[in-house]
Protein backbone atom coordinates (compact mmCIF):
# COMPACT_ATOMS: atom_id res chain seq x y z
CA UNK A 1 0.00 0.00 0.00
CA UNK A 2 1.17 3.52 -0.79
CA UNK A 3 0.25 4.80 2.70
CA UNK A 4 2.03 3.50 5.75
CA UNK A 5 -0.98 3.88 8.02
CA UNK A 6 -4.59 2.92 7.61
CA UNK A 7 -6.56 6.10 7.00
CA UNK A 8 -10.27 6.61 7.51
CA UNK A 9 -10.55 6.65 3.75
CA UNK A 10 -9.74 2.95 3.68
CA UNK A 11 -13.11 2.18 5.21
CA UNK A 12 -15.25 4.38 3.03
CA UNK A 13 -16.46 1.89 0.40
CA UNK A 14 -14.97 3.79 -2.51
CA UNK A 15 -11.85 3.31 -4.56
CA UNK A 16 -9.42 3.53 -1.69
CA UNK A 17 -11.33 0.74 0.08
CA UNK A 18 -11.17 -1.29 -3.10
CA UNK A 19 -7.44 -0.84 -3.13
CA UNK A 20 -7.18 -1.99 0.47
CA UNK A 21 -9.24 -5.07 -0.38
CA UNK A 22 -7.32 -5.87 -3.53
CA UNK A 23 -3.87 -5.21 -2.13
CA UNK A 24 -4.28 -6.74 1.31
CA UNK A 25 -7.19 -9.12 1.71
CA UNK A 26 -7.49 -10.49 -1.80
CA UNK A 27 -3.76 -10.98 -1.91
CA UNK A 28 -3.51 -12.76 1.43
CA UNK A 29 -6.78 -14.70 1.43
CA UNK A 30 -6.49 -16.28 -1.98
CA UNK A 31 -9.53 -18.44 -2.39
CA UNK A 32 -11.50 -19.03 -5.59
CA UNK A 33 -14.80 -18.42 -3.83
CA UNK A 34 -13.67 -15.19 -2.18
CA UNK A 35 -12.17 -14.10 -5.47
CA UNK A 36 -15.59 -13.78 -7.03
CA UNK A 37 -16.11 -10.78 -4.74
CA UNK A 38 -19.83 -11.17 -4.51
CA UNK A 39 -21.81 -10.16 -1.44
CA UNK A 40 -21.76 -13.69 -0.08
CA UNK A 41 -19.61 -16.72 -0.78
CA UNK A 42 -21.37 -19.60 -2.48
CA UNK A 43 -19.78 -22.81 -1.24
CA UNK A 44 -20.44 -26.46 -2.07
CA UNK A 45 -22.00 -28.65 0.63
CA UNK A 46 -24.85 -31.11 0.92
CA UNK A 47 -26.72 -28.26 -0.67
CA UNK A 48 -25.28 -25.10 -2.20
CA UNK A 49 -24.57 -22.75 0.66
CA UNK A 50 -23.90 -19.03 0.74
CA UNK A 51 -21.65 -17.70 3.49
CA UNK A 52 -20.79 -14.09 4.35
CA UNK A 53 -19.37 -11.91 7.12
CA UNK A 54 -19.34 -8.22 7.98
CA UNK A 55 -18.32 -5.97 10.88
CA UNK A 56 -20.33 -3.00 12.08
CA UNK A 57 -18.85 0.12 13.65
CA UNK A 58 -21.47 2.84 13.18
CA UNK A 59 -21.28 6.07 15.14
CA UNK A 60 -23.57 6.96 16.87
CA UNK A 61 -24.75 3.44 17.70
CA UNK A 62 -28.38 4.58 17.93
CA UNK A 63 -29.64 6.67 15.04
CA UNK A 64 -33.05 7.62 13.65
CA UNK A 65 -34.59 4.48 12.18
CA UNK A 66 -32.19 1.94 13.63
CA UNK A 67 -29.12 1.06 15.62
CA UNK A 68 -25.94 -0.95 15.29
CA UNK A 69 -27.70 -4.21 16.21
CA UNK A 70 -30.41 -3.97 13.58
CA UNK A 71 -27.77 -2.95 11.08
CA UNK A 72 -25.57 -5.95 11.93
CA UNK A 73 -28.38 -8.43 11.28
CA UNK A 74 -29.91 -6.71 8.25
CA UNK A 75 -26.53 -6.20 6.62
CA UNK A 76 -25.68 -9.88 6.72
CA UNK A 77 -29.18 -11.02 5.79
CA UNK A 78 -29.01 -8.67 2.82
CA UNK A 79 -25.58 -9.81 1.69
CA UNK A 80 -26.82 -13.40 1.65
CA UNK A 81 -29.98 -12.44 -0.18
CA UNK A 82 -28.00 -10.58 -2.85
CA UNK A 83 -26.26 -13.79 -3.89
CA UNK A 84 -29.60 -15.49 -4.43
CA UNK A 85 -29.54 -17.42 -1.16
CA UNK A 86 -32.22 -17.85 1.48
CA UNK A 87 -30.59 -16.60 4.72
CA UNK A 88 -30.72 -19.18 7.51
CA UNK A 89 -28.11 -18.85 10.24
CA UNK A 90 -26.22 -15.93 11.69
CA UNK A 91 -23.31 -15.62 14.09
CA UNK A 92 -22.82 -12.55 16.26
CA UNK A 93 -19.50 -11.47 17.73
CA UNK A 94 -19.20 -8.42 19.95
CA UNK A 95 -16.24 -6.27 20.89
CA UNK A 96 -17.42 -4.15 23.80
CA UNK A 97 -15.69 -1.25 25.44
CA UNK A 98 -15.27 -1.48 29.18
CA UNK A 99 -17.90 0.65 30.87
CA UNK A 100 -20.56 0.23 28.19
CA UNK A 101 -24.00 0.41 29.85
CA UNK A 102 -25.93 -2.84 30.12
CA UNK A 103 -29.13 -0.99 29.31
CA UNK A 104 -27.71 0.00 25.98
CA UNK A 105 -26.36 -3.48 25.36
CA UNK A 106 -29.83 -4.89 25.95
CA UNK A 107 -31.29 -2.40 23.50
CA UNK A 108 -28.79 -3.44 20.86
CA UNK A 109 -29.23 -7.15 21.43
CA UNK A 110 -33.00 -6.94 21.47
CA UNK A 111 -32.97 -4.99 18.28
CA UNK A 112 -30.83 -7.75 16.73
CA UNK A 113 -33.29 -10.38 17.87
CA UNK A 114 -36.22 -8.43 16.43
CA UNK A 115 -34.48 -8.01 13.09
CA UNK A 116 -33.53 -11.71 13.00
CA UNK A 117 -37.10 -12.60 13.80
CA UNK A 118 -38.47 -10.47 10.99
CA UNK A 119 -35.95 -11.90 8.54
CA UNK A 120 -36.63 -15.46 9.69
CA UNK A 121 -33.00 -16.22 10.49
CA UNK A 122 -31.51 -17.85 13.56
CA UNK A 123 -28.55 -16.38 15.43
CA UNK A 124 -26.82 -19.65 16.18
CA UNK A 125 -23.42 -18.80 17.53
CA UNK A 126 -21.56 -15.88 18.95
CA UNK A 127 -18.68 -14.44 20.88
CA UNK A 128 -17.97 -11.53 23.18
CA UNK A 129 -14.80 -9.68 23.99
CA UNK A 130 -14.47 -6.73 26.29
CA UNK A 131 -11.58 -4.38 25.75
CA UNK A 132 -10.11 -1.58 27.84
CA UNK A 133 -11.76 1.77 27.78
CA UNK A 134 -10.47 3.61 24.76
CA UNK A 135 -9.53 0.46 22.85
CA UNK A 136 -12.93 0.32 21.16
CA UNK A 137 -15.68 2.87 20.71
CA UNK A 138 -18.66 1.58 22.74
CA UNK A 139 -19.48 -1.54 20.75
CA UNK A 140 -18.40 -3.25 17.55
CA UNK A 141 -20.34 -6.16 16.13
CA UNK A 142 -19.37 -8.80 13.60
CA UNK A 143 -21.96 -11.07 12.09
CA UNK A 144 -21.45 -13.99 9.74
CA UNK A 145 -24.31 -15.69 7.96
CA UNK A 146 -25.09 -18.85 6.08
CA UNK A 147 -27.86 -19.21 3.55
CA UNK A 148 -29.09 -21.94 1.27
CA UNK A 149 -28.81 -21.24 -2.43
CA UNK A 150 -31.96 -21.29 -4.47
CA UNK A 151 -31.52 -23.98 -7.08
CA UNK A 152 -30.51 -22.58 -10.44
CA UNK A 153 -29.84 -19.06 -9.17
CA UNK A 154 -26.97 -17.48 -11.09
CA UNK A 155 -26.71 -13.99 -9.71
CA UNK A 156 -23.42 -12.14 -9.90
CA UNK A 157 -22.04 -8.68 -10.53
CA UNK A 158 -20.36 -10.05 -13.66
CA UNK A 159 -23.65 -11.11 -15.25
CA UNK A 160 -24.88 -7.82 -16.69
CA UNK A 161 -25.77 -7.96 -20.39
CA UNK A 162 -26.40 -5.12 -22.81
CA UNK A 163 -30.10 -4.37 -22.89
CA UNK A 164 -30.74 -5.33 -19.26
CA UNK A 165 -32.84 -3.03 -17.09
CA UNK A 166 -31.45 -1.48 -13.90
CA UNK A 167 -33.96 -1.32 -11.06
CA UNK A 168 -33.72 0.15 -7.58
CA UNK A 169 -36.14 -0.64 -4.77
CA UNK A 170 -36.63 2.96 -3.58
CA UNK A 171 -35.10 6.31 -2.67
CA UNK A 172 -31.37 6.78 -2.10
CA UNK A 173 -29.27 8.34 0.65
CA UNK A 174 -31.64 7.97 3.61
CA UNK A 175 -29.37 5.93 5.87
CA UNK A 176 -26.27 8.08 5.41
CA UNK A 177 -28.13 11.33 5.99
CA UNK A 178 -29.97 9.96 9.05
CA UNK A 179 -26.70 8.92 10.64
CA UNK A 180 -24.93 12.13 9.70
CA UNK A 181 -27.72 14.26 11.18
CA UNK A 182 -26.78 13.03 14.63
CA UNK A 183 -23.03 13.45 14.32
CA UNK A 184 -21.29 15.77 16.70
CA UNK A 185 -20.58 19.19 15.25
CA UNK A 186 -22.93 18.69 12.33
CA UNK A 187 -26.18 18.84 14.14
CA UNK A 188 -29.10 19.44 11.90
CA UNK A 189 -32.61 18.29 12.54
CA UNK A 190 -34.50 16.17 10.11
CA UNK A 191 -37.26 13.61 10.18
CA UNK A 192 -35.28 11.35 7.84
CA UNK A 193 -34.88 7.84 9.16
CA UNK A 194 -32.42 5.19 8.13
CA UNK A 195 -33.86 2.75 5.60
CA UNK A 196 -32.15 -0.15 7.44
CA UNK A 197 -34.26 -3.26 6.75
CA UNK A 198 -33.95 -6.97 5.97
CA UNK A 199 -34.49 -7.42 2.25
CA UNK A 200 -34.78 -11.21 1.99
CA UNK A 201 -38.56 -11.04 1.60
CA UNK A 202 -38.30 -8.48 -1.17
CA UNK A 203 -35.62 -10.48 -2.98
CA UNK A 204 -37.65 -13.66 -2.65
CA UNK A 205 -40.61 -11.91 -4.23
CA UNK A 206 -38.49 -10.80 -7.19
CA UNK A 207 -36.97 -14.23 -7.76
CA UNK A 208 -40.29 -16.02 -7.27
CA UNK A 209 -41.89 -13.72 -9.84
CA UNK A 210 -39.87 -15.67 -12.40
CA UNK A 211 -37.99 -12.60 -13.59
CA UNK A 212 -34.59 -13.39 -15.08
CA UNK A 213 -32.38 -11.70 -12.46
CA UNK A 214 -28.75 -11.20 -13.49
CA UNK A 215 -27.32 -9.22 -10.58
CA UNK A 216 -28.36 -7.96 -7.16
CA UNK A 217 -26.46 -5.74 -4.76
CA UNK A 218 -27.31 -3.51 -1.82
CA UNK A 219 -25.79 -0.06 -2.30
CA UNK A 220 -24.38 0.42 1.20
CA UNK A 221 -21.14 2.35 1.80
CA UNK A 222 -20.15 4.28 -1.28
CA UNK A 223 -23.83 4.47 -2.25
CA UNK A 224 -25.49 3.80 -5.56
CA UNK A 225 -22.45 5.18 -7.42
CA UNK A 226 -20.13 2.47 -6.07
CA UNK A 227 -22.56 -0.37 -6.74
CA UNK A 228 -23.19 0.70 -10.32
CA UNK A 229 -19.49 1.17 -10.99
CA UNK A 230 -18.75 -2.28 -9.55
CA UNK A 231 -21.40 -3.76 -11.84
CA UNK A 232 -20.05 -1.92 -14.88
CA UNK A 233 -16.44 -2.92 -14.17
CA UNK A 234 -17.13 -6.57 -13.38
CA UNK A 235 -19.36 -7.05 -16.42
CA UNK A 236 -17.37 -4.81 -18.78
CA UNK A 237 -20.40 -2.75 -19.78
CA UNK A 238 -21.79 0.77 -19.67
CA UNK A 239 -24.56 1.38 -17.16
CA UNK A 240 -26.66 4.34 -18.28
CA UNK A 241 -28.77 5.94 -15.57
CA UNK A 242 -31.51 8.50 -16.00
CA UNK A 243 -31.27 10.99 -13.13
CA UNK A 244 -34.91 12.00 -13.45
CA UNK A 245 -35.92 8.46 -12.47
CA UNK A 246 -33.77 8.30 -9.34
CA UNK A 247 -35.70 9.12 -6.19
CA UNK A 248 -34.06 11.32 -3.56
CA UNK A 249 -36.20 12.40 -0.61
CA UNK A 250 -36.51 16.18 -0.24
CA UNK A 251 -34.77 16.16 3.09
CA UNK A 252 -31.92 14.06 1.78
CA UNK A 253 -31.57 16.45 -1.14
CA UNK A 254 -31.58 19.41 1.24
CA UNK A 255 -28.97 17.90 3.54
CA UNK A 256 -26.76 16.99 0.59
CA UNK A 257 -26.97 20.50 -0.89
CA UNK A 258 -26.11 21.94 2.49
CA UNK A 259 -23.15 19.69 3.18
CA UNK A 260 -21.88 19.46 -0.35
CA UNK A 261 -22.47 15.72 -0.57
CA UNK A 262 -23.60 13.68 -3.55
CA UNK A 263 -26.67 11.54 -2.76
CA UNK A 264 -25.36 8.94 -5.21
CA UNK A 265 -22.43 8.38 -2.88
CA UNK A 266 -24.38 8.30 0.38
CA UNK A 267 -24.97 4.93 2.06
CA UNK A 268 -28.22 2.95 2.02
CA UNK A 269 -29.04 0.00 4.28
CA UNK A 270 -32.39 -1.17 2.97
CA UNK A 271 -32.19 -0.85 -0.78
CA UNK A 272 -31.31 -3.23 -3.57
CA UNK A 273 -30.17 -2.58 -7.10
CA UNK A 274 -31.40 -5.35 -9.38
CA UNK A 275 -30.32 -5.90 -12.96
CA UNK A 276 -32.83 -8.02 -14.87
CA UNK A 277 -33.51 -9.03 -18.46
CA UNK A 278 -35.30 -6.15 -20.18
CA UNK A 279 -38.43 -8.17 -20.87
CA UNK A 280 -38.85 -8.93 -17.14
CA UNK A 281 -38.29 -5.40 -15.84
CA UNK A 282 -41.91 -4.56 -15.16
CA UNK A 283 -42.49 -7.94 -13.56
CA UNK A 284 -39.54 -7.41 -11.20
CA UNK A 285 -40.67 -3.89 -10.27
CA UNK A 286 -44.19 -5.16 -9.53
CA UNK A 287 -42.77 -7.93 -7.35
CA UNK A 288 -40.61 -5.47 -5.39
CA UNK A 289 -43.60 -3.26 -4.80
CA UNK A 290 -45.39 -6.08 -2.96
CA UNK A 291 -42.79 -5.71 -0.18
CA UNK A 292 -43.13 -2.90 2.38
CA UNK A 293 -39.51 -2.04 1.56
CA UNK A 294 -40.01 -1.80 -2.18
CA UNK A 295 -43.09 0.41 -2.54
CA UNK A 296 -41.13 2.94 -4.57
CA UNK A 297 -39.25 0.48 -6.76
CA UNK A 298 -38.52 1.81 -10.22
CA UNK A 299 -36.44 1.36 -13.36
CA UNK A 300 -33.57 3.85 -13.35
CA UNK A 301 -31.47 2.85 -16.31
CA UNK A 302 -30.25 0.33 -18.83
CA UNK A 303 -27.12 -1.64 -19.56
CA UNK A 304 -25.31 -0.94 -22.83
CA UNK A 305 -22.22 -2.24 -24.54
CA UNK A 306 -18.96 -0.45 -23.79
CA UNK A 307 -18.07 0.64 -27.32
CA UNK A 308 -14.44 1.53 -26.59
CA UNK A 309 -14.08 -1.33 -24.13
CA UNK A 310 -14.15 1.16 -21.27
CA UNK A 311 -16.77 0.19 -18.69
CA UNK A 312 -18.38 3.18 -16.98
CA UNK A 313 -21.54 4.58 -15.51
CA UNK A 314 -23.16 7.52 -17.26
CA UNK A 315 -25.86 9.76 -15.90
CA UNK A 316 -28.37 11.65 -17.98
CA UNK A 317 -28.79 14.77 -15.83
CA UNK A 318 -31.99 16.62 -15.00
CA UNK A 319 -31.04 19.28 -17.55
CA UNK A 320 -30.75 16.65 -20.26
CA UNK A 321 -26.96 16.51 -20.61
CA UNK A 322 -24.80 13.47 -19.91
CA UNK A 323 -21.97 13.06 -17.47
CA UNK A 324 -19.93 10.34 -15.78
CA UNK A 325 -21.10 8.97 -12.43
CA UNK A 326 -17.86 8.09 -10.68
CA UNK A 327 -17.21 6.17 -7.50
CA UNK A 328 -16.67 7.88 -4.21
CA UNK A 329 -13.00 8.46 -3.54
CA UNK A 330 -11.96 8.25 0.08
CA UNK A 331 -14.13 9.41 2.90
CA UNK A 332 -17.21 11.54 2.42
CA UNK A 333 -16.63 14.86 4.12
CA UNK A 334 -18.93 17.80 4.41
CA UNK A 335 -17.48 20.67 2.46
CA UNK A 336 -18.09 24.35 2.08
CA UNK A 337 -16.81 24.81 -1.44
Amino acid at each position, binding site marked *: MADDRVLLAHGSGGKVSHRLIDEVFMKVFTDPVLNRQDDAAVVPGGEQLAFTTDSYVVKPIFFPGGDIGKLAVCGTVNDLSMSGAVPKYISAAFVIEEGFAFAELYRVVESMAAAADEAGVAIVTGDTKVVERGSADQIFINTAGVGIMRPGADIAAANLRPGDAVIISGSIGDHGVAVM*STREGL*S*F*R*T*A*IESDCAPLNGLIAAVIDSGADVHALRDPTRGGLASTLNEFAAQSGVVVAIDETQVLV*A*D*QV*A*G*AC*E*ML*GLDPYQVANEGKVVAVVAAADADKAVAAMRTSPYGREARIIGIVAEAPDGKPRVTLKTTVGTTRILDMLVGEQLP*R*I*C
Partner: protein
Amino acid sequence: MCLGVPGKVIAVKDDWIAEVDISGVVIDVGLQFTPEAKVGDYVLVHTGYAMHVMDEAEAMETLKLLEEMGAAAELPDGQIS
Protein backbone atom coordinates in the same frame (compact mmCIF):
# COMPACT_ATOMS: atom_id res chain seq x y z
CA MET B 1 -15.81 28.25 -4.30
CA CYS B 2 -18.58 28.72 -1.87
CA LEU B 3 -21.55 26.45 -1.51
CA GLY B 4 -24.66 28.33 -0.58
CA VAL B 5 -28.13 26.91 -0.19
CA PRO B 6 -31.45 28.72 0.03
CA GLY B 7 -33.51 27.98 3.13
CA LYS B 8 -36.56 29.41 4.83
CA VAL B 9 -36.36 31.16 8.21
CA ILE B 10 -38.84 29.38 10.49
CA ALA B 11 -37.90 30.87 13.87
CA VAL B 12 -35.67 33.62 15.17
CA LYS B 13 -34.02 32.79 18.50
CA ASP B 14 -31.66 34.71 20.81
CA ASP B 15 -28.07 35.53 20.19
CA TRP B 16 -28.50 36.16 16.47
CA ILE B 17 -29.53 32.60 15.75
CA ALA B 18 -32.38 31.59 13.47
CA GLU B 19 -33.76 28.18 12.61
CA VAL B 20 -33.68 27.70 8.87
CA ASP B 21 -35.48 24.96 6.96
CA ILE B 22 -33.73 23.60 3.87
CA SER B 23 -36.39 21.37 2.34
CA GLY B 24 -37.12 19.63 5.60
CA VAL B 25 -33.67 19.84 7.14
CA VAL B 26 -33.53 22.34 9.98
CA ILE B 27 -30.28 23.99 11.05
CA ASP B 28 -29.19 26.89 13.22
CA VAL B 29 -28.01 29.82 11.19
CA GLY B 30 -26.33 33.08 12.27
CA LEU B 31 -28.22 36.23 11.32
CA GLN B 32 -25.45 38.74 12.01
CA PHE B 33 -25.07 39.61 8.33
CA THR B 34 -28.79 39.76 7.59
CA PRO B 35 -30.41 41.39 10.63
CA GLU B 36 -33.41 42.24 8.45
CA ALA B 37 -34.31 38.56 7.90
CA LYS B 38 -37.63 37.57 9.40
CA VAL B 39 -39.71 34.42 9.69
CA GLY B 40 -40.88 33.34 6.25
CA ASP B 41 -37.94 34.88 4.37
CA TYR B 42 -35.64 32.74 2.26
CA VAL B 43 -31.96 33.28 2.99
CA LEU B 44 -28.77 32.03 1.37
CA VAL B 45 -27.00 29.83 3.92
CA HIS B 46 -23.22 29.49 3.79
CA THR B 47 -21.33 27.60 6.55
CA GLY B 48 -24.07 28.22 9.08
CA TYR B 49 -24.61 31.91 8.36
CA ALA B 50 -27.26 33.71 6.34
CA MET B 51 -25.46 35.81 3.75
CA HIS B 52 -28.40 37.43 1.97
CA VAL B 53 -32.18 37.53 1.98
CA MET B 54 -33.45 36.12 -1.30
CA ASP B 55 -35.29 38.45 -3.58
CA GLU B 56 -38.32 36.47 -4.65
CA ALA B 57 -39.46 39.03 -7.25
CA GLU B 58 -36.03 38.95 -8.91
CA ALA B 59 -36.04 35.14 -8.94
CA MET B 60 -39.40 35.12 -10.72
CA GLU B 61 -38.19 37.81 -13.09
CA THR B 62 -35.11 35.75 -14.01
CA LEU B 63 -37.19 32.65 -14.68
CA LYS B 64 -39.55 34.65 -16.86
CA LEU B 65 -36.63 36.08 -18.78
CA LEU B 66 -35.19 32.61 -19.29
CA GLU B 67 -38.49 31.38 -20.67
CA GLU B 68 -38.63 34.26 -23.09
CA MET B 69 -35.05 33.68 -24.22
CA GLY B 70 -35.81 30.04 -25.01
CA ALA B 71 -39.06 30.92 -26.72
CA ALA B 72 -37.35 33.60 -28.81
CA ALA B 73 -34.83 31.03 -30.01
CA GLU B 74 -37.65 28.93 -31.39
CA LEU B 75 -38.95 31.65 -33.66
CA PRO B 76 -37.78 31.02 -37.22
CA ASP B 77 -36.32 34.50 -37.46
CA GLY B 78 -35.07 34.64 -33.86
CA GLN B 79 -32.96 37.74 -33.71
CA ILE B 80 -30.45 39.03 -31.30
CA SER B 81 -32.32 41.35 -29.01
